[in-house]
């Protein structure tokens, strides 16, 4: 084997070990009645914030509170509550901040509408520029050659 190949093999091995060494998201064994329920559980715990470690969601966090809230979500799911009911349960206790996806309501209109506004501003600037250039070309056709 050429030295460069050996180097690549070693590099690959070291990198894969470091990937394996990463902690996988903690999950206590949870029993579900169907795949659909499990999917909903995973979806919900990814959308809910762990309040203790504010930049992690419930699914990823190993904090005691996250354990308890995961158990709570699981229990409510098994009891037949809808996703909205479970989210409402969390919001009533911890506030909107617990949701990673902010709801559309009065104090979040700016947040939701700002991208549209920026798009319109961009379109306006584009239009002005195109007009300017078109006018320039019209007055100066020789420039095209």
């Amino acid at each position: 084997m050429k030295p460069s190949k050996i180097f690549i093999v070693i590099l690959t091995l070291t990198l894969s070990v470091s990937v394996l060494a990463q902690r996988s998201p903690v999950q206590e064994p949870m029993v579900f009645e169907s795949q659909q329920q499990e999917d909903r559980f995973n979806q919900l715990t990814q959308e809910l914030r762990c309040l203790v470690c504010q930049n992690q969601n419930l699914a990823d966090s190993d904090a005691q509170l996250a354990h308890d809230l995961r158990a709570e979500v699981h229990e409510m799911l098994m009891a037949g509550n809808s996703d909205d009911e479970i989210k409402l349960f969390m919001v009533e206790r911890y506030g909107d901040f617990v949701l990673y996806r902010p709801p559309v309501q009065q104090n979040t209109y700016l947040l939701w509408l700002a991208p549209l506004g920026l798009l319109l501003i961009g379109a306006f600037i584009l239009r002005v520029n195109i007009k300017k250039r078109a006018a320039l070309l019209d007055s100066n056709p020789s420039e095209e050659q």
Partner: protein
Amino acid sequence: MNSRIYPLLGFALLVVLLVVGLQIADRKTNLPSPLIDKPVPAFDLPVLASQSQNMSKESLLGKPYLVNFWGSWCVTCRAEHPVVTELAKLNAVYIVGMNFRDEPEDAIAWLKRWGNPYDVSLIDFDGRVSIDFGVYAAPETFLVDPSGTIVFKHLGQLTWDVVETEILPRLASMESGS
């Protein structure tokens, strides 16, 4: 105007947004509780001192009280303990200690060692009631008025400053209101 100034203006705007954003992020450490002005969550928990006996939210109606979530495992609770003790000495308010996610023996030992400022301590062993209160850090302190409504919440270590500026004035206004 030179058109080169526009990217600079855009950059300046982003910097302003960053500063504002960081300041808002700073305040996130003390989130307003959605429970303010809401009724106290229901609870019916064993009393730490005599565990065959229970105490419920209904039995506390009619007088203002303070709910202080604590645990023997909680370092900050130890740090705020002198403040709670000072407040208890004033006899200004009934203080309920919510001992949560703790072993009762450890809790009793903790109170014996540092002194017991609580009029009563309740055992929230599995932390279910703490979830209903939206507790996500310890200690957390709630002030409840005589009708059973939460009027104030403090997250983290209670300081004498908070007692003087937030808790005592509210108690005084409840007194004059009734």
